[in-house]
């Protein structure tokens, strides 16, 4: 049984309880009074980026719409500007709840796979933890080739003038593609991350087990 089906089974009719127990800051969801100030304050809202604004997500959680919420791209669009937290009359930590729901959806494998924010977050994490330093060239290349080789080349060519300029200004070193610079104590970093993974895994496992 996957983590998702196990949790779905566990909480059956009570998605709100699931969110409260599994999602960081999830116990705040019940306190929303549906005033909509968060939605009105959200800068991404102007670009129709939200499928569901925060207060609607909270209502969906209360209405038990588990799949719609967890597979939604909405919470992934949060830019962490904290406008909603500042303005919420009920003092809900909305930004944190958004990230909490996103993280939970990711953890149990329901988050939309190719959602740009999520894809980039994964890419960034892998990139940064591999050598202890972010390799900007590899990171941006990874994004360009997100949708395959052909589109990657096509998108890359659009930016070629910028890239050449950067190379000439010595802001971009093509040789970084091969290895690149690293932290001094690579082993130490890996050991530290391993320990951190262990701690988190045991904590989440305990949470999932209830």
């Amino acid at each position, binding site marked *: 049984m996957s983590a998702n089906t196990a949790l779905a089974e566990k909480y059956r009719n009570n998605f*709100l309880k699931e969110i409260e127990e599994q999602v960081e800051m999830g116990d705040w969801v*019940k*306190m929303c*009074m*549906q005033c909509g100030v968060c939605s009105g304050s959200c800068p991404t809202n102007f670009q129709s980026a939200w499928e569901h604004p925060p*207060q*609607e997500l909270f*209502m*969906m959680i*209360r*209405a038990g*719409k588990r799949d719609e919420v967890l597979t939604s791209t909405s919470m992934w669009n949060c830019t962490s500007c904290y406008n909603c937290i500042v303005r919420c009359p*009920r003092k809900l930590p909305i930004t944190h709840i958004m990230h909490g729901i996103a993280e939970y959806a990711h953890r149990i494998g329901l988050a939309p796979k190719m959602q740009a924010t999520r894809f980039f977050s994964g890419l960034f994490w892998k990139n940064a933890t591999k050598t202890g330093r972010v390799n900007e060239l590899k990171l941006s290349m990874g994004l360009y080739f997100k949708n395959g080789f052909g589109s990657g080349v096509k998108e890359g060519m659009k930016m070629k003038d910028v890239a050449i300029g950067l190379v000439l200004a010595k802001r971009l070193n093509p040789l970084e593609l091969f290895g690149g610079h690293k932290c001094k104590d690579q082993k130490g970093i890996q050991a530290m991350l391993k320990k951190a993974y262990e701690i988190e895994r045991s904590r989440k496992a305990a949470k999932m087990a209830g």
Partner: protein
Amino acid sequence: MADIKVAAYICKGCGLGERLDADALVKIAQKDGKVPLAKSHDFLCNADGVAMIKNDIANEGVTHIMIGACSRRAKTEAFFFPENAVARANLREGVIWIRPDTDEARETTQEMAEDYIRMGCAEVKAMTAPAGNAVTGSSKTLLVVGGGVTGMTTAIEASKTGYPVVLVEKSGALGGWAAKLYKRVPVHEPYKSPADTGVGELISQVLGDSNIKVYLNATVAKTDGAPGRFIVDIATESGATHTEDIGAIVQASGFDLYDMNKLPELGGGKSANVVDQAGLEALAVAAAAGDGVIRRPSDNQPVKSVVFVQCAGQRDPSGTHLAYCSGYCCNTSIKQAMYFKDANPSVDTTIIYTDLRTPGNGEDFYRSAQEKGVIFTKGKVAEVVPGGNTSTVKFHDLILDDKDAAMLDVDLVVLATGQVPNSGINIDAPAATAEEGVVEVKPISILNLTYRQGKDVPQLKQGFTDSHFICFPYETRRTGIYTAGPVRRPMDIAQAREDATGAALKSIQALENAELGRAAHPRSGDLSFPKVRLEGCTQCKRCTVECPFGAIDEDEKRFPVFNESRCRRCGTCMGACPVRVISFENYSVNTVGAQIKAVDIPDEFSEKPRILILACENDAYPALDMAGMGRNEYSAFVRIIPIRCLGSVNTIWITDALNAGYDGVMLMGCKSGDEYQCHFVKGSELGRVRMSKIDDTLKTLNLESERVRDLEVAITDIERVPEMINKYAAELVAVGPSPFKGF
């Protein structure tokens, strides 16, 4: 009339001396006003000026005083001569403050002042000092009808103030609805959990008070008389009748819940597991007596999920159910959801609302419910489908715009149905025609008044008792009878207790004033009252029908019988009387008529039109005064006479004015209709009905309909009222001068 001696005093203070020719005004008073004693004074309202008037009263035998100074609304304490008839010519707010201080304007301004002096002299001669009503009663006992929270609070508050109380309760026990509650919405910090009702304590306070006489299982069989001297028959279950002498009455007859059987689509009456809020209180009380678990009625199993349906049969725009919001039900449902959550947090409690309204400190209570895990869903419930032991609640989720949202397997549905006032018979309703086969349940009278106009106090909208909602919320349209609590408007316990306290104090005022023979409200302290010359009465019954306060009964010969203590002194009867036999000592067809005739009407070639303004003293006249205070200018051609109410305007005044050559008449009264602002409730409405027939008069005089203008003026129309005057004055120029000038 006995010997009268009139004195006129012209003040020169506040700039009057500089702007007006006071000596000329004194001469006008002597020559046109025919006043034997006329004086001017530099500062009439100071101690010296007042002493001068008092000296004249004592030594010169002055009985009638005409003061030409500020508005009658100003300096009322300085110019207080209760033994004398007093008229005031408004030279300050009404003349110099509304006219520009220029040489061109000086002539018309002076003419305006001269006319006001003529009018004041004419008015005061037609007046006598009011002596007060002689037919008074002195009962200090308060009757409280209804033994619920409102009634008991009224009784306790009145008793604490030192007034004996008779409390009549229909049922066998005190407490009313509140006694049936398990707990109440909290009224003290931290507003987090339901609190004890405190009704038990109220009941023991009432029962332990020797000043409060309680009749249980009793109703009011008859209420006769007037404030200060009501005679009330109280019928008890045994069939015995007790008669009590009563000074004033507080009707706290409360409410019934809207009948949920009228809501079959919400499952009302279709399943034992669908209850109203009172039904849930009963379940909670039963649970508290047992193991504390609320059980569903159908099979006595513990309730695991409960849905509260807000606005059930309320705020209904279609007119089928209640049109209004009862205001307390949101807090009540929150409280009831807590009954479940406090006992067992795993019970699913959902409140489906469209607009959650939690007045007072309800916001904290609401937040507390959210913390406890009560789910609030914004939606409109379409249907409750009972099936076996559970129900399905179908609703339109308004946040998610999901028209087919549903709650399944709900053990208990609670409908928040709201309050319907228990206000007795609607005396204004047309007699219902009995439909065949339909058994109409007729409302039972609460007070059984012997008043000519009907057995109960009049109602406004939705059956709540009529009161002046803005200014005098406790006053009904029956003097000395106050309504308090949910019979007046929907409310919760906290509001009802506040209401009860207010009503207790108002009723005490009423009975004290009644004993002194003066008006209680809104002309508090007024000693005048309507006098009728019965020899001239034609028994047309207009006064008895029209009196907004039911003050006038009819005797066996169908003559009007005035109950002065019930009267509010509006003069509607005086305005209604076609033979003009009703008058007050200081306000009559003559006092106003004499003023109208006293105005000097220049001929048609002078280009000085004259416009008569009859302005309601409660709203329009203060607005005009305030326009003066703000130095808003208006036409010098108007002559303003304050009237007690538009309802007191007798059409003879209009006819007289037009015959005398006035070019136009403006009537300024308050807003009428359902949203009325008239201090006398129906006065302005009745006045307007009368005035709507003025066209016939104009036709017989062969005059244009523009000559009479009926206007709605509120006290806030300070800047609008000068504009209205100037606009009308300009319109009249187009109409041309009245053809009646110079006759």
